[in-house]
């Protein structure tokens, strides 16, 4: 079954001097969030940006895929701490995404954990959608 998720944004004025709002998400989970070119390209100053939202989407999707893969292998995780760091080069686009995970997983060895993390990195839907990013790195270890 297909799942739809909708979010709206408003932008007022020019790119450099204007400002935008990401309105309350369809789920009600977040928003309104302020965005601006300055906070996207320079210091965030408390404002999110498309790159930070992509980082959140990727870290979340990767964690769920890894959780699923570990459970299927008979070694469900107690806790997974993931992060995604998105590097954006203005004029070129997203140059790099660095994924990290530290896992508390009873009954698994480091090598198998690393292999499951590598599978989740390739297989999660956000990774598949972002397959065009030139470099996606993974740093996986047991906590």
């Amino acid at each position, binding site marked *: 079954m297909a799942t739809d998720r909708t979010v709206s*944004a*408003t*932008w007022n004025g020019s*790119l450099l001097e204007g400002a935008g709002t990401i309105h309350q998400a369809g789920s009600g989970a977040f928003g309104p969030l302020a965005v601006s070119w300055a906070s996207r390209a320079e210091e965030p100053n408390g*404002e999110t940006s498309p790159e930070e939202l992509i980082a959140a989407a990727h870290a979340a999707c990767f964690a769920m895929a890894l959780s699923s893969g570990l459970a299927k292998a008979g070694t469900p995780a107690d806790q997974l701490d993931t992060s995604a760091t998105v590097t954006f080069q203005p004029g070129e686009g997203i140059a790099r995404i660095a994924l990290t995970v530290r896992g508390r997983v009873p009954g698994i060895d480091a090598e198998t954990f690393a292999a499951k993390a590598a599978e989740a990195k390739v297989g999660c839907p956000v990774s598949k959608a972002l397959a065009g990013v030139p470099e996606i790195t993974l740093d996986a270890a047991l906590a």
Partner: protein
Amino acid sequence: MPRIVRKAEVAWKGTIARGSGMAVASSSSSFALPFTNASRIGEPEGKTSPEELLAAAHAGCFSMSLGSELARAGTPPEHLDVRCTITMDEVEGRGHQIVHSAIEATGVVPDCDEAGFAQAGEAADAGCPFSALIKASATVSVNATLEGI
């Protein structure tokens, strides 16, 4: 221009079926959001999902690109509204995949006609870094119309 780096962190506890996660905006501290597998696949029940975060990213990225394209064409916008719907579906033999991003843009743009606005919409789709990337697994549709015409 220097590289821009943005980070988010997630803590996931428990199994995929019954566990839950928290996604935190580490760079800006602007959000900390719970999510579960049930709220990702079924009804959101007030929780976000990776796809909703991508919809927010695409709406934000596209609105900035469209504003930039309109300014470049000599018709800077007063106001732009951009709505993005991301669809995830199960694809035969490939599991869950993000298959479509639908962008609907409306705007108040002095001295710009419908054709010019639609053209700026196409240029924004070509220029928005996220539109380009997501085409690895998804199609992107853009529907751009001026307000009050």
